């Protein structure tokens, strides 16, 4: 299984994933501050609310046992000058380039809430990036516990403000105003988007709108006018009055929170696929039969972890979550995944929605491709059940993926159950996709589909959906091919 490389940006320590455990080495000069932070009201309150990753310090015998483990980064093997902590593991890590705008907004909200709460306890947040946050189901969890440091009481400046703007506010602004996908922004750049880049998109009048002025235009003009060699700009501007410094920072956090709230994605966003549940090609009996078929399969196999591939607005993800599974729902439509996130959060369902094209799943990113693992590295073997409903015709026709390849991927993703919907080329939706290229799929029929499944799966049962050219299959993974 893939293991991300240890983190390296923070001079105070590094985090590493080791044999299913999340370990953090903290350097000697940061240990006391880190432990003090974990004892603050802020940390306790957010840990109790499951919004901050639970953390414990390993005792001496546990640390000594680690030293004998091969494969750990050297700094963990000889932590004489520091300490090792262990974090609770978040089941399925996800990254900002896979989130719908709603999730980026929620991660930003949590970041600001923590920064505000830490201020009251005399601590400051030293970086403000969405990479500090993972999602447990639909709920954000702040995982970079070492991001807090005791702040100088006289410092009125929050240095990560620019990073917060680059990685939260401007991506949300660009997504809302011009429809730029977050996947593109965060795949291209770890640190978001610069005000100067957004400035180039703005029309002459738009540059003077209040929100653009504050977040984009004025920082851009100041960058152009300022002398980049003047290092005095970066010197701390300490005030003699700590009360005043805190007043300024509280005002800054309120202002950022207002900006973030004004960029909250709208609830009813429209896209090509957002109305699918209302406009799909099934009549009621067919849809009821499909729903019953999926429910029975879930009841029979009781999968603990389910991947709903091509989830659309998450109707079947909800069924799986209600059956007790932890669900990862992927769809390439950000409006649909955003709707799933809202529903999961409102109904407190264990669903993690991700914007993902199964034909072009998110790649490994970062330094040496080791900072963010690829989707398939995280997903293969991670699920007990996979749902592929109304999906394969998109892969077969639009993406030109061979049927055998689709089934092989499903085989690698699931440990047990696959519920798949086979769609005959005569189906209206199938023909809409072929656009005159029907001859390419003329030989595709249910028998051929079953033969293609045979090397990988046993057919538990199948059901022709009444009044359609579609057939549901409940398949059980064969132990080896």
């Amino acid at each position, binding site marked *: 299984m893939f293991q991300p490389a240890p983190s390296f940006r923070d001079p105070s320590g590094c985090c590493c994933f080791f044999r299913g455990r999340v370990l953090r080495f903290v350097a000697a000069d940061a240990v006391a501050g880190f432990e003090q932070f974990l004892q603050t009201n802020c940390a306790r309150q957010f840990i109790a609310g499951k919004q901050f990753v639970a953390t414990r310090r390993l005792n001496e015998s546990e640390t000594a046992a680690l030293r004998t483990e091969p494969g750990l980064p050297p700094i963990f093997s000889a932590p004489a000058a520091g300490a090792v902590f262990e974090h609770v593991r978040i089941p399925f890590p996800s990254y900002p380039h896979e989130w719908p705008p709603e999730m980026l907004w929620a991660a930003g909200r949590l970041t600001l809430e923590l920064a505000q709460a830490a201020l009251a306890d005399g601590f400051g947040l030293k970086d403000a990036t969405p990479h500090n946050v993972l999602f447990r189901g639909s709920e954000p969890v702040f995982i970079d516990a070492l991001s807090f440091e005791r702040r100088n009481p006289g410092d009125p400046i929050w240095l990560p*403000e*620019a990073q917060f703007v680059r990685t939260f506010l401007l991506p949300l602004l660009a997504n809302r105003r011009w429809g730029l996908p977050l996947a593109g922004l965060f795949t291209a750049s770890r640190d978001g988007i610069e005000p100067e880049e957004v400035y180039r998109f703005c029309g002459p009048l738009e540059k003077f709108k209040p929100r653009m002025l504050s977040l984009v235009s004025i920082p851009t003009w100041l960058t152009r006018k300022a002398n980049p060699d003047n290092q005095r700009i970066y010197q*701390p501007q300490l005030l003699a009055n700590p009360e005043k410094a805190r007043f300024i920072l509280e005002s800054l956090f309120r202002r950022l929170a207002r900006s973030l709230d004004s960029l909250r994605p709208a609830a009813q966003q429209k896209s090509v696929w957002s109305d699918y549940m209302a406009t799909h090609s099934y009549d009621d009996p067919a849809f009821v039969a499909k729903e019953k078929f999926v429910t029975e399969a879930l009841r029979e196999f009781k999968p603990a972890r389910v991947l709903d591939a091509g989830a659309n607005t998450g109707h079947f993800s909800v069924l799986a979550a209600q059956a007790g599974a932890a669900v990862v729902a992927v769809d390439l439509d950000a409006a649909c995944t955003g709707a799933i996130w809202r529903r999961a959060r409102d109904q407190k369902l264990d669903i993690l929605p991700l914007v993902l094209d199964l034909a072009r799943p998110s790649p490994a990113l970062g330094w040496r491709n080791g900072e963010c693992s690829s989707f398939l590295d995280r997903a293969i073997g991670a699920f007990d059940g996979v749902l592929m409903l109304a999906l394969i015709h998109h892969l077969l026709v639009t993406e030109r993926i061979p049927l055998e390849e689709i089934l092989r991927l499903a085989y690698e993703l699931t440990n047990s159950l696959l519920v798949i919907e086979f769609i005959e080329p005569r189906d209206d939706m199938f023909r809409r996709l072929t656009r005159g290229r029907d001859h390419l799929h003329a030989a595709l029929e249910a028998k051929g589909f079953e033969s293609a499944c045979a090397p990988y799966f046993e057919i538990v049962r199948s059901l022709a959906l009444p009044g359609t050219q579609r057939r549901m299959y409940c398949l059980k993974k064969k132990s080896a091919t």
Partner: protein
Amino acid sequence: MTIVLAYVDPGLGALLWQSTIAAIVGFVFYLNKTRRWIVSTIQKIFGRGRKPEAASTKITVSSESLATKVERKTEVR
């Protein structure tokens, strides 16, 4: 106390803009403080003798309004 400086890029224009706003908000802080000082000073000079009066006024008002409500209900009946 060890202060570890943030390692993230603070930007250039963004940092200058934040510093400018911080200066303005700092001025607001003194305005607020001055306003609070003026209000508390006025209260110290003039407020002491008035407090019991203000309290009795409140009671009068509330008892008046209660009496009015009772009267209205009686009229309705």
